[in-house]
């Protein structure tokens, strides 16, 4: 449908131009002082001027906080300003890791943290496995010769753009006690299920909703990988009358492997940081059945009666180390791919 395409393209241009107009005016205004600066320090040194704003932002909002985070984690008390906080050494970490058995969160002094760890681990494992499975199937199906491929791709992709709050509310409405899913269950002769009262169901839906929301993103990565596989490989296989499952195992899967690795690691990194959807959907409940590590950090620092910044910082340092290890794994995996 060429006419639609052109009208959407001109619409897009109009948006881009509209957004750029005030921007351009600002940029023009900055030229005069910049010219003076250039005369002062020389053409080559302007590189630093261009880099500076970004580095200031990175510094103030990422690097300095990274250091202060460690300072927070080795100091105690309820004060926010580090100068007013007494040094406690590894006290916060000791408190965090004070457990009878690490496999039983109930035996820990800070049991909510360990429940968060256990839930996050469970959530991440289920989520990554299901995510890889479903996004792989979807990508393979979308890569077949199918009518309306663009439409179907959009169907799977659109939830990626929705906010976690919206996603959680959509499903909360479907899953609530008198919701449409329970109506379906009773119509089929079943009983209503209180999904958010049962710990098992709450975790199931937390995983399900997160897959629903993010599957499109991973599908897209895999689809790009599938489309990069040379078609003549498949043609050769077809000429030899190779069975389809064999084509899949011998050609598709090995050549898709790098993209699969990316999907697995990205899903792992995101899974460990899960917070918003689950928080809005279940609030961490019932009890602490779906409480995640990030929710623990948020509540310890900001929403509990006593704001314990030190403990929250210690927990986020631990989370940071886990994320660092995962990122390192990703780097090694992608290095091996390019080698």
């Amino acid at each position, binding site marked *: 449908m060429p006419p639609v395409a052109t009208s*959407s393209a001109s*619409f*897009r241009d109009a948006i*881009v131009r509209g*957004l750029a107009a*005030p*921007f*351009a005016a600002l*940029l023009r205004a900055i*030229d005069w002082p910049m010219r003076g600066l*250039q005369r002062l320090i020389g053409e080559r*040194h*302007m*590189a*630093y001027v*261009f*880099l500076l*704003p*970004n*580095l200031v*932002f*990175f510094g*103030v*909002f990422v*690097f*300095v*906080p*990274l*250091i202060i*985070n460690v300072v927070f984690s080795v100091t105690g008390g309820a004060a*926010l300003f580090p100068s007013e906080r007494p040094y406690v050494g590894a006290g916060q970490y000791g408190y965090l890791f004070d457990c009878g058995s690490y496999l039983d969160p109930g035996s820990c002094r800070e049991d909510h943290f360990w429940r968060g760890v256990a839930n996050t681990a469970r959530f991440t494992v289920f989520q990554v496995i299901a995510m890889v499975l479903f996004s792989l199937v979807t990508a393979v199906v979308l890569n*077949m*010769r*199918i009518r309306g491929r663009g439409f179907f791709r959009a*169907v799977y*992709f659109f939830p*990626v753009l*929705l*906010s*976690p*709050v*919206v996603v959680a*509310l*959509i499903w909360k*409405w479907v899953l609530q006690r*008198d*919701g449409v899913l329970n*109506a379906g269950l009773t119509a089929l002769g079943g009983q209503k299920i209180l999904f958010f009262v049962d710990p098992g169901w709450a975790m199931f839906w937390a995983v399900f909703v997160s897959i629903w929301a993010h599957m499109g*993103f991973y599908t*897209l990565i895999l689809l790009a990988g599938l489309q990069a596989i040379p078609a003549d490989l498949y043609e050769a296989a077809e000429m030899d009358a190779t069975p389809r499952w064999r084509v899949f195992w011998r050609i598709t899967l090995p050549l898709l492997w790098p993209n699969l690795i*990316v999907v697995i690691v*990205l899903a792992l990194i995101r899974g460990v940081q899960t917070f*918003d959807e689950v928080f809005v959907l279940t*609030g961490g409940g019932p009890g602490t059945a779906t409480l995640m590590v*990030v929710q623990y*950090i948020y509540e310890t*620092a900001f929403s509990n009666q006593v704001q314990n*910044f030190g403990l929250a910082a210690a927990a*986020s340092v631990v989370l940071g180390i886990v*994320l660092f290890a995962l990122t390192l794994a990703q780097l090694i995996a992608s290095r091996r791919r390019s080698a």
Partner: protein
Amino acid sequence: MSALTRLIGTRRHRGRWHWTDVAAYAYLALGVVLMFGPVVWLVLSSFKTQAGLLEFPPSLLPSSQREVVVQGFPQPLPLFTVTLEDGSTKVLAQARRIGIVAQMVDPQDPAKQYRVPIEKRVPVREFKLATANYTDPLQKFAFTRFLYNSLFVTVIATLITLLINSMAAYSLSIYEFRGKNAAMLLVIGTLMIPITIILVPVYLVVTEFGLVNSLWAVILPGAATPTGVFLLRQYMLTLPRDLIEAARMDKASEWQIYWRIVMPLAMPALAVLAIFSVMWRWNEFLWPLAVLTKTEVQTLQIGLNAFQGELQTQWHYLLAMTVVTLAPVALVFVFLQRFITTGIANTGMK
């Protein structure tokens, strides 16, 4: 019909149906139901009245009982189809109900009264959109405030993001200078540091600047994004150098080269970053949740979350507000779908 046969008639091998073709279409059909269903259900539900939402099992379309104004009664009366004693049916309005007996009047002839057992009447339903769900929150809650806050954060943050990241990308792609590698490493380093692990110290920094409960506390921390620097730098590296050299010959200042030559040429990459930034900012949750505690500075996402957490969730308003929050993103998607998907496929980021 021909469209349908054409739709189904495409197979891998011409002429022969393989079971995988059937399975593929079945899977896609299931996907449409599973992915679209909940959103369609949300939109349909958002037009139901409060009473309509309490019905179980729920009706598919928003409908409610029809009401009429009858002479002599101050309130509009609900209409019922009543089976009278002689077996005939009549549409009557219910004046009041006493126990199991309803006192009803004929809307055409208000003087005529009937006493009807309640099991003999069936409500008259009509398709009706409860648009009040959308218009009420505009007056009753801080909803307009949330909307404004979200718009402000999204627009300003995106402009700042575009500016400072394109400047850095320009510096890192056009110039050779001492410390360039260190700067690149620094940027790569921040790629690994999400806000989740520096929540407390960023809160401290923001407090030091006196920005707690200010929209700038949400705008500033995420403004410099390594994703953005990378995306733009990759693109700028492909631009022809001769153009820049020629501009220098013509005595253009470095700043002019940046915004008159490189920026317009980098427009496709800038547009991708702009869309990403709008999505990030419009949808951002954890950080605003931590730093915006007063209602008047909260964004839509935080406001929605607070609203759904209240004891007596007013679902009819909540659903409508959710639809309003979802609408701009849906619009962006409809117009820029291809653009977004290729952007993500090319960068592997979102």
